[in-house]
């Protein structure tokens, strides 16, 4: 047995020397073929085993297998080390200027009105308010009469209404571009009945255009009707909303008696704030800022919505989405909301991933 091994020693050494002498992958391959290929020296020797006696075959075969395995392992190791060396050499030459800008990617944005609408929706959804919608071209009845604004009511004149054209000979009252989101109250009540909790965000229109007015702006309406909803619930709801929306630890609201034809009693709502160096801070200070109008839904309005005012009662409120967006995010000019100036959209816009939620906070 030891004879067999001894016989193979030079062969083994010879091949191992050739392997360590191979200096590139091609040379390694050449060695591999010469040793272990079909007609390689080791392979040929393996084939000769068949001519031997069983004893010879056992001893020589074992030794030969061991040599073959050793050569094979050496080939692999050498190959790997050569590859590593080649890779290191290549990497030494591979260098990129990492300070060059990345490939450009367009940055899209959401308009503050969309973002704020989602914020408001998230808060009210948590309080069980669904989102109701209605047409922006409204009949005179939904926009006014149903809301207790009779044709000659002075409030109707103050609404600066846009009217739609009527065909000649058409005697019905002209349709209007809704002057507020309140008609959605009526439609929602008619569709769902009581109890009901909805908010209705959307575009509204008034014939007004100056420094602080645009002929189109956005309102959000809130309506909650149940057996025993009172103005105290309204106040709490708005306090909670303002606290969550403005993301401050606490807010103080002041209800001031006012008049809206569709609510009774009616209140304008002010929020405590301070203006220091032109910077608005909600929740502290000695100033009051009017933010919305609200009240208990007028019996006439409930009846318009098909709800019995002797059985049901509740509150409604309305506020300007653009306005609360301006207040929260420090946006100075309402008119710019609708000018689509790319610089403005980028500066005041929100990223697609900034999804407001009650759990994660409304703004970044």
């Amino acid at each position, binding site marked *: 047995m030891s004879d067999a091994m001894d016989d193979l020693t030079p062969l083994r050494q010879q091949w191992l020397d050739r392997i360590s002498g191979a200096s590139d992958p091609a040379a390694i391959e050449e060695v591999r073929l010469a040793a272990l290929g079909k007609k390689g020296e080791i392979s040929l020797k393996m084939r000769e085993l068949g001519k031997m006696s069983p004893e010879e075959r056992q001893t020589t075969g074992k030794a030969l297998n061991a040599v073959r395995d050793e050569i094979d392992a050496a080939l692999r190791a050498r190959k790997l080390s050569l590859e590593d060396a080649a890779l290191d050499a290549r990497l030494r030459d591979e260098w990129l200027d990492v300070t*060059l800008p990345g*490939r*450009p*990617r*367009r940055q*899209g*944005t*959401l*308009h503050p009105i*969309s973002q704020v609408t*989602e914020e408001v929706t998230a808060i009210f*959804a948590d309080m*069980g308010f669904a*989102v109701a919608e209605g*047409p922006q*071209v409204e*009949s005179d009845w939904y926009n006014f009469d149903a809301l207790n604004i009779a044709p*000659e*009511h*002075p409030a109707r*004149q*103050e609404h600066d209404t*846009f*009217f*739609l*054209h009527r065909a000649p000979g058409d005697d019905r009252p002209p*349709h209007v571009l809704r002057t507020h989101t309140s008609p959605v109250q009526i439609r929602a009540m008619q569709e769902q009945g009581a*109890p009901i*909790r909805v908010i209705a965000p959307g*575009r509204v229109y008034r014939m*007004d255009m100056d420094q602080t007015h645009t*002929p*189109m702006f956005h309102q959000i309406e809130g309506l*909650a009707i149940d057996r025993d*909803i*009172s*103005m*105290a619930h309204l*106040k*709490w*709801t*708005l306090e909670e909303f303002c606290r969550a929306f403005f993301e401050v630890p606490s807010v103080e*609201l*002041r*209800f001031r008696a*006012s*008049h809206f*034809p569709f609510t*009774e*009693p009616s209140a304008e709502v002010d929020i405590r704030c301070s203006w220091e160096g032109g910077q608005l801070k909600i929740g502290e200070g000695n100033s009051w800022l009017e933010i919305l109008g609200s009240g*208990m839904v007028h*019996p006439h309005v409930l009846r318009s919505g098909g709800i019995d005012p002797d059985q049901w009662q509740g509150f409604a409120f309305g506020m300007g989405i653009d306005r609360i967006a301006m207040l929260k995010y420090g946006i100075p000019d309402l008119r710019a909301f*609708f000018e*689509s*100036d*790319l610089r403005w*959209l980028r500066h005041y816009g929100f*990223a*697609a991933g900034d*999804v407001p939620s009650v759990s994660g906070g409304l703004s970044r």
Partner: protein
Amino acid sequence: MKFTLSWLKEHLDTTATLAQIAEALTDLGLEVEDIHDPAASLGAFTLARVDHAEPHPDADRLRVCRVMTDEGEKQIVCGAPNARAGITVVLAKPGDYVPGIDTTLGVGRIRGVESHGMMASERELELSEEHDGIIELPSGKVGQRFVDWLAEHAPEKIDPMIHIKITPNRPDALGVHGIARDLAARGLGVLKPVQVDPVAGAFPCPIGVTIAPEVAAKAPFFAGRVVRGVTNGASPAWLQKRLRAIGLRPINALVDITNFFTFDLNRPLHVFDAAKVSGDLILRGARAGEELVALDDKTHALPDGAVVICDDRGIESIAGIMGGAASGASETTTEVFIEAAYFDPISTAAAGRALKINSDARYRFERGIDPAFTQSGLELATRMVMDLCGGEASEVVTAGALPDTDRAYRLDPARTTRLVGMDIPEAEQRAMLEALGFRLEGDMAHVPSWRPDVLGEADLVEEIARIASLTRLEGKPLPRPRAGVPLPVLTPLQMREKTARRMAAALGYNECVTYSFIDRPSAELFGGGTDAVRVENPISSEMSHLRPDLLPGLLAAAARNQARGFADLALFELGPVFSGGEPGEQSVRISGLLVGAIAPRDPFGSRRKVDLYDAKADAEAILQAIGAPAKAQITRKLDGWWHPGRAGTIALGPNVLASFGEIHPRVLRQMDVKGPAMGFTIQLGAVPFPKAKTPTRPALELSELQSVDRDFAFVVDAGVEALTLVNAAAGADKALIAQVSVFDQFEGLEGGQKSLAITVRLQPKEKTLTDAEIEAVSRKIVEKVGKATGGRLRA
């Protein structure tokens, strides 16, 4: 509505401070818009005495004065002609802010002489326009505060002016007396009753009055009387001051009296020069074509049916709105006819709107004045006319009858508490209503004649809540509609809008919000601009028609941004478009617009012009995000604002989900956009909603068997559409072919042909494919494509 504090105190006995009154007014619903309190800026100034005055060594008109102040003697240089020894003056010291010159004083040197302050004129302290000299006071001690001196000796000079906003339901607060009533009800003082002592008529009224039946409803009641032998001149100083304080110009005593009662008691009056009235007066409806030169010296065409007051000569006055110039009272009037009438709010408003006259009288009549006070107003005016102008009064002549305003509503104190959420004892509720003039009989509250706005039980609740103060209201948690985690509240379409919007932003588009109304030519370019969607009273011709599409707004936005130097734009809008002018003829869409290059210049050469396939990819990405089925047809049934050859629609049969492509160059030219521009529009509501909502996904089917990819390049005519070829290939063996996609296109081959290369994925389901099987499918693909497109394999 403006008034001064002293005027208010004529009606309210109160010790409340200005701040308390202002706070209460706002809280009561009479929102204070502005307070001008002259005393607020005078607090620093003190009295001083000039002990010595001698000419300035270097200036003829200046004097160097030694002035005794509360801080000892000071040297002050003064240019006033009346600066002289012995006078008591108002001193502003270094460090004081002087409102009339908007300056904070320092120690000055005037022509080489130091001056330690200034002696003020009335204008410098904003007390009047007086600036001929410094203030000389007839009394006062050195060091006394000037405001204290004024309060004692000339309170009218520092009478604060209060400006409140009146909501349309509160005509009663358009008179100072009504404002005082609210404050008294709140407990801020005691309301002083209006004393009316009728003036007995000395002779029959020489002017008769009749109301024509046709206007009986519009002008239910008219009262008047003549005062003869009056001397009309300037009104007394107290009256002039009062009117000036609220921004009215005194004219003459008779006119000033009418203005005074308009604001004092919300009782508009009119005075005719009786000598210029010919015959009796009749109230009738104006007829088409009639005109009047009114007191504003303008000729007004009178609307048909407006109530006018006529004498034998013709129209002399427009009822409740404005008198005529011809018969108005002037300085030469010696005989005056005083009118106190009640006109219907609705018809006065209609006439006023048609006339476009905004007068204090119209403002009040259209909101509703107190009809029951008509004759009392006439008596008070008569007395004041006689007091100020002399003369003797005739008997009162009346026509018509006062409307009956008596009505009562049930006061349910428990309901008040339930609605307001504030516990107000019944006795307090009743007391509040009584303080406002309601008369309570049992649980029925009779409404005072000056409150036309109170029309139901709910109004009683509002009055009580208002007087009780909503500021005191404490919030009470609103219970959730159900216990536990809130249910989702958005509708599928609302969710879809949210998703589409965020997807568009994620794709790099900037969201715009543009106006719903656009100009007619732009609307017409996009299939709109008809009369049905025309705004009758647009704010400008740029905003005259409801938009039929979102693209015009985005194109206009692109043009504006291009003008600012931004050439690469990706804009989108999600919002309503209008197919007609009826409520509900509206649907929600999302449109995107791409102009310029997809990216700024960079070192990698990424920059290239946007093309139709960018718009298509983005439209498809949004469609996929909102759950549109993956397999939709692409057609070329296009609206006219798309490039005829470079745009398409994505549809499910007849249901068009989206359009995409290049905007027609002619549209771009008309909208001043430098193109080319690509766009897409998705009808969010057209995408079918899943029939049953289930979160469960279909099971993932993964084959154990290796799939095989085979590439084919076909030569086809240039007009052959890729989808035809792809569909043909896919149809070759529906069971085996899992996917076909185009991976190369090469145009400009010989004979106007092009090469389209596709890769086909074969996914065996039962056993691994043999070469022969693959070969067979390949042959079938070539055959099918050849049949459908005339294409052949590229050599």
